[in-house]
């Protein structure tokens, strides 16, 4: 045991999480205990996990076997660089979210606080254990426990039918995805009956079986991550969940799917084929475009963020796809670059999306409004939440010098290496692909401006918003932690790359550290000549000219300021309703990308006495894939249901026919 100190520590910390959950169950209705003691304790445990996992990024893999599980298949746990990296993301994000939750959950909302505490901490522990699992059974158990715990969290306000529906869809797709993963492990174990990952690594699969395993993994983990076309649950489940839970689901749980996919694609499968990479790249890009285009037209703030998560997951998978492509062509250095981009985005998305989700939670509590059409001007009444979200929004829009930009930068850099691929078809494909990435990044900016502008800027769209209260101190603390994460990831990429280097070394056999030449302040993927990015200098440059300008203007001229009503163009009734609405802001995108939506519009004519305007944006996948599928199942069920039509003579006939068939079979 002593040979695996960090792993044992992390396992023990998971056990503490579980214990906190059970304590919550014991203190079912003692709200203050649960909120003020247990949730912060959970946050502390998260920090401890960060501390325990950090050294093992560089250390040798550690493993532990617990006497649980199936006979002959005890739970194996293993902590290597990849696990440690994702544990860092988990611990780092959930520390902030737990702190936020301490102030967030209210007494009289849906599920009892103690039960929420149990589900929340089981969710966290299950995610951590997914990252540690080193055999298929432990992995699947933790994986499904994670899905189950998050499902219960999603429906914690289960009296609303819509939320139940969302939870149902979520768990259904999660379960089907899990079956896919399970079958993938079935392939990987190669009929040896040994489900440990160690054995799977040792197997040499034929190309057919390897591809089968890969496709199953892609489908299974893709369903969890929200890749198109398995994304439909995501925009339903995230808004339904309480905000800290949405934050965890979007920030961390989706990343466990990324983790699982990397684990299978790079660690358990011995080889990669180039078309795998193309497939993943295509799916990732489709998700990115689809996600951002839908995010731009949402009018529910959490739903907008959920679609944006699909977009970001798409970018992550695009990076992974690219790295598989490079790895298949034996270009480890570039594969490491693309993989670094993906992993970096994993971390930065975890922080900024959690931040934005908890911010929406604070807004939701202050205003009890989720619809963008009824918010506005909150920056003035909720400055803490407002300024924290501004940073989240900037990071999410992929703007320098914050975390989101670094990963996009790395991703675009790796695209520039595709002309080196020994496949002319792929060479042709890639510019188009890079253009799509650029478009997605720009649209993300559009979406985030809409998100922030409509919620926090302008005038209050409803009277009562003026009375909204800013977040409490626990919530501020949580948000501040997450903001710090975004900023640190944005300003100190070279330092974070030190953590990523052993991981990419592990997966593709190369890392960016080989190339950067040891520069601590510049991000250098290959050489300074080729490309570099120094966010600190960058930030210093902007800040310096900002400061100089401010100083000089004050010094040379004056600082006089007058307040007056905004200019009303001579039209005396300037009301809040004249501001651009969320729908209005989405209109250009809706128009440009019209074929991607399934729109139902209700437009007024010039003569309507009571003009009404409505637009409903639907998902083609839902209409052309899921509904037909549901109908197919329904009609199949109807057809099969006719078998059971109540007449005993018919039933006897079935028996008779079965007997005849079997007799024919055996005498054949």
């Amino acid at each position, binding site marked *: 045991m002593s040979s695996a100190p960090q792993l044992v520590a992390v396992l023990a910390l998971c056990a503490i999480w579980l214990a906190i959950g059970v304590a919550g169950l014991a203190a079912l209705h003692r709200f203050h205990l649960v909120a003020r003691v247990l949730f912060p304790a959970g946050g502390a445990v998260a920090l401890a996990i960060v501390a325990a996992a950090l050294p093992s990024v560089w250390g040798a893999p550690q493993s532990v076997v617990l006497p649980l599980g199936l006979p002959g298949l005890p739970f194996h746990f293993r902590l290597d660089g990849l696990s440690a990296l994702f544990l860092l993301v988990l611990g780092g994000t959930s520390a902030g979210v737990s702190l936020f939750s301490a102030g967030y959950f209210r007494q009289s909302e849906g599920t009892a606080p103690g039960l929420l505490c149990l589900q929340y901490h089981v969710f966290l522990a299950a995610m951590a254990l997914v990252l540690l699992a080193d055999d298929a059974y432990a992995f699947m158990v933790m994986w499904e426990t994670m899905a189950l715990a998050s499902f219960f969290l999603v429906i914690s306000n289960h009296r609303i039918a819509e939320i139940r529906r969302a939870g149902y869809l979520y768990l259904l797709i999660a379960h089907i995805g899990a079956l896919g993963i399970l079958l993938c492990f079935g392939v990987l174990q190669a009929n040896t009956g040994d489900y440990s990952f160690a054995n799977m690594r040792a197997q040499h699969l034929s190309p057919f079986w390897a591809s089968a395993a890969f496709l199953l993994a892609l489908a299974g983990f893709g369903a969890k991550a929200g890749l198109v076309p398995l994304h439909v649950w995501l925009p339903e489940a995230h808004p339904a969940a309480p905000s800290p839970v949405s934050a965890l689901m979007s920030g961390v749980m989706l990343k466990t799917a990324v983790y699982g996919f990397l684990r299978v694609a790079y660690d358990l499968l011995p080889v990669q084929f180039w078309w795998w990479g193309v497939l993943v790249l295509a799916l990732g890009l489709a998700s990115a475009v689809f996600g951002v285009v839908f995010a731009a037209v949402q009018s529910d703030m959490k739903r907008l963020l959920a679609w944006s998560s699909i977009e970001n997951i798409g970018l992550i998978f695009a990076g992974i796809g690219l790295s598989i492509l490079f790895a298949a062509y034996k270009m480890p250095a570039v594969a490491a670059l693309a993989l670094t981009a993906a992993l970096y985005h994993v971390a930065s998305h975890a922080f900024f999306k959690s931040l934005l989700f908890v911010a929406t939670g604070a807004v939701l509590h202050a205003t009890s409004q989720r619809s963008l059409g009824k918010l506005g001007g909150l920056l003035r009444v909720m400055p803490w939440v407002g300024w924290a979200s501004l940073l989240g929004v900037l990071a999410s829009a*992929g703007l320098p010098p914050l975390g989101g930009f670094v990963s996009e930068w790395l991703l675009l850099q790796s695209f520039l290496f595709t002309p080196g691929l020994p496949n002319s078809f792929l060479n042709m494909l890639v510019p188009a692909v890079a253009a799509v990435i650029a478009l997605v990044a720009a649209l993300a900016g559009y979406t985030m401006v809409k998100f922030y502008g409509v919620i926090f800027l302008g005038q209050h769209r409803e009277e009562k918003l003026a009375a909204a209260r800013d977040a409490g101190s626990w919530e501020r603390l949580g948000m501040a932690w997450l903001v710090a994460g975004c900023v640190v990831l944005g300003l100190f990429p070279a330092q974070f790359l030190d953590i990523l280097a052993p991981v990419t070394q592990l997966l593709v056999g190369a890392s960016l550290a080989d190339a950067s030449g040891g520069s601590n302040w510049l991000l250098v993927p290959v050489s300074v000549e080729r490309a570099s990015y120094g966010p600190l200098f960058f930030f210093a440059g902007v800040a310096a000219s900002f400061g100089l300008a401010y100083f000089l203007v004050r010094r040379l001229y004056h600082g*006089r300021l007058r307040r007056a009503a905004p200019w009303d163009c001579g039209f005396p009734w300037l009301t809040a309703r004249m501001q651009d609405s969320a729908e209005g802001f989405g209109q250009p995108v809706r128009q440009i990308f019209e074929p991607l939506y399934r729109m139902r519009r209700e437009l007024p004519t010039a003569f309507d006495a009571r003009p009404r305007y409505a637009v409903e944006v639907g998902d083609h996948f839902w209409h052309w894939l899921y509904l037909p599928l549901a109908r197919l199942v329904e009609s199949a069920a109807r057809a099969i249901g006719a078998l059971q039509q109540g007449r005993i003579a018919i039933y006897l006939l079935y028996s008779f026919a079965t007997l005849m068939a079997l007799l024919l079979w055996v005498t054949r």
Partner: protein
Amino acid sequence: MSVLGLASQVLEIFAALALAPLLAGWVGQCRAWLQNRSGPGLLQPYRVLHKLFNKDSVLATHASPLFRTAPYVIFGCMTLACGIVPTLSTDLPLSPAADAIALVGLFALARVFAALAAMDVGTAFGSLGARREMLIGFLAEPALLMVFFTAALISDSTSLTTIVRTLSAREIGIQPSLALAAVALVMVALAENARVPVDNPATHLELTMVHEALILEYSGRHLALLEWAAALKLFAYACIGIALFAPWGVAHGQAPAALVFALPVLVAKLAAAGFLLALLETVSAKMRIFRVPEFLGMAFLLAVIAMLVKILLGAGPQ
């Protein structure tokens, strides 16, 4: 980081700060000439700036601190942008901090702040301007990036200094990919700098304005900063065009003489670029805002084609 490098960096930034309003004035003057008007004179932008700085700043009653911060942020971004495009020298200490992609990000950052500030007051115009600005932005930004990528593929680098160094070492000649990219860049520049045919900087007609709607609520020193920033942006775009398509005359390495020589060359090139811009603006008509996506889509397409052509033909100095 050499002393000379530092000097050229500082020189470049100050040249930009000083010359940007002049370029704006020059363009305005050329337009006036082309339209048979006498024009306000080259120095008009300086006078406007001075006037605005002297005026009181009037803020809407419920404008938030964001509204007051934004002009400084935008101004800072544009200054930095001018600092990292190699116009006078390729030996710039700031260059490793930001490459072409970061430059695009920098423009995006400024744009996002402008749009947010416009939404802050909560009038119909502000949000309308913000929306249109972001619309133009999300279409122009990828196109600009693709233009850079074309150059980056030619020079195997996204570092602007390396690009300029590579391209200026080339012999003069038409490269199809660069030609296409140049057209795309011009289209993007027109859109991004609120020029005809996308926007009209001289109008306050509600239905058509974009940039003016965005800064409608600003006055006094804030407006001055924004105007200056707009001039800097135009300057930066002009310099990008020059750096990518006419990079000759920029100082390389430790050569003070070349640096001294580079400044007049730059002025000359800028003058040509400004005249070209005025010409373009004069011969084209303002298009409906609904047509802008098509216009920018075309720019995007051209830039992508430029990249494809580069890969297909395998052109470029190897």
